[in-house]
């Protein structure tokens, strides 16, 4: 009997593939194409019917990296974004790991309550989080002064979000505060998946709690730590809402909190007296895409190989 052509497979796959391809993959590829053009900026309309597009090859990229009009903002945003990421990895990961390690303790009571509450901020809108902290840290309200005053350190208060030296760190800490729940949850899940026998064997051999953690558990969950790093990396280079809520698109003071997301927005839509530039916006987006790709590829090479080694 000859097999019928499997129409049903196509019917099942078509809707998802169609929407995904047209509204996600095609725009990504088309954005890269647009980044190779320049636009005759006659009209102020965002729609590209207002200007004639001319193919200029990699000229936009050259301008972005080396031409003063763009390059200062680009390198500044890139540097800030890397710093933003490094702060996340070096603060968020250890806190997440510590809490997960505590929660994975079998005898601990109330662990479900802790878990639920610590994960809560990750569910909140970044915009709302940004506004809340903007209010809490503003010197009009005086919450930090009150809290510092309790321990007699009131003089340490400064408007951290407003100072060029501390704004980026403060914004990073706010974001870390919000998303600690995610590494916590992933590490917790990984710790639960470690087979009992391994831990029992360690106990029988007289390994202490701390020793067991660093010598046995941590190496076993290392792949999850790697995954968390790359997820954070992608998320951080995609960040926009927090800066927009706290600092608007100007990413002040003096662009010290500017990230690739806000830089992209300003480039695309324009700000103050600068007109929006869709093709340059496409260039910034494509460059961000490249940056994200580099991170993902590094992860795949560095960690994916190890996962097989630690498979249990």
């Amino acid at each position, binding site marked *: 009997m000859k097999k019928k052509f499997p129409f049903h497979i196509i019917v*099942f796959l078509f809707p998802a*593939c169609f929407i995904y391809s047209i509204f996600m993959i095609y725009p990504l590829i088309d954005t890269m194409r647009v980044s190779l053009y320049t636009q005759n900026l006659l009209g102020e309309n965002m729609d590209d019917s207002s200007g004639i597009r001319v193919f200029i090859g990699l000229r936009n990229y050259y301008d972005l990296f080396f031409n003063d009009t763009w390059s200062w903002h680009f390198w500044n945003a890139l540097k800030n974004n890397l710093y933003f990421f490094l702060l996340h990895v070096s603060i968020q990961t250890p806190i997440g790991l510590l809490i997960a390690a505590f929660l994975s303790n079998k005898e601990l009571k109330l662990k479900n309550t802790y878990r639920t509450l610590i994960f809560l901020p990750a569910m909140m809108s970044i915009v709302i989080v940004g506004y809340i902290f903007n209010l809490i840290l503003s010197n009009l*309200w005086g919450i930090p002064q009150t809290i510092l005053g309790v321990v007699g350190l009131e003089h340490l208060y400064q408007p951290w979000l407003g100072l060029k030296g501390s704004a980026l760190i403060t914004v990073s800490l706010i974001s870390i505060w919000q998303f600690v729940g995610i590494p916590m*949850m992933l590490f917790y899940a990984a710790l639960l998946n470690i087979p009992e026998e391994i831990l029992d064997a360690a106990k029988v051999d007289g390994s202490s709690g701390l020793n067991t953690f660093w010598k046995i558990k941590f190496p076993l969950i290392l792949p999850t730590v790697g995954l968390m790093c790359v997820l954070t990396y992608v998320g951080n280079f995609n960040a926009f809402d927090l800066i927009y809520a706290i600092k608007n698109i100007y990413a002040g003071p003096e662009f010290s909190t500017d990230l690739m997301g806000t830089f992209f927005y300003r480039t695309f839509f324009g700000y103050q007296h600068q007109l929006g530039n869709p093709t340059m916006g496409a260039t910034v987006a494509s460059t961000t895409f490249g940056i994200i790709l580099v991170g993902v590829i590094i992860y795949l090479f560095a960690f994916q190989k190890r996962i097989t080694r630690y498979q249990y």
Partner: protein
Amino acid sequence: MKKISSNLNSTIMHLVLITYTIICLFPVYLLVNNSFKSRRAIFKQPLSLPNEDTFSLGGYLKMFSRIDFSIYFYNSAVITIITLFFVLLFGAMAAWALSEYKFKGNTMLGLYLALGIMIPIKLGTVSILHLMNTLNLVNSLTGLIIIYIAQSLPLAIWILTEFMKQLSNELKEAARCDGVNEYQLFFYIVLPLLRPPMATVGVFTMVPVWNDLWWPLILAPSNGKQTVILGMQQYIGQYVTNWNAIFASLSLALIPVIIFYLIFSKQLIRSITAGAVK
């Protein structure tokens, strides 16, 4: 001796965890608590709970007199629910095809669809805006819904595929022997079995969609089509000085998500820790 040290250990753990939980909840407490206080009390006693003297709904009243939050809530709810429906339907269909049928290019297609988990859709904004202009979907809820479906599908398909691989073969084969065709098999037998992963997919779809600022900002910035988050953001932008109203609008935008999360948290956390999302 051992008993004492284990007691000490658990005390330290509880102290650390309680401290961190307080750090997590303190800002939320400050926000919601102060939204029910008079302006004077917000500044004078920001930490204490409202009492007879300081209780006030002024912020909420002020806010409702200026903007129609119910429209924003309606928009957000419509967007979120329709998106969720199509993500679940299309996602489950694709996941079913990927996990059940062997066909040429199956693995490649799976990888292609998984790309979207790692690549943020925001990077295609320039072209998406152009596309939406061409399709005349700027300034409409439909445009937003389509983008959200595209954005949520990759993760949904991935989670559902992992789950469907674990479904028992016997059930499927038994159904096929009874002469059930592939569509009936999927819609009547497989779909009802998907309740547990659907809850996970639901939370992972709804929360980012409800909370999103970027697409409403870009695609629907004008009157009457704002989502809660965008409406709140524009409102705060206009009335920066009225703290009561700010607290009220922030609380109002926040509370639905908190309630939603607390209802589904058990299921969500269970499925994360069970390894559905690794």
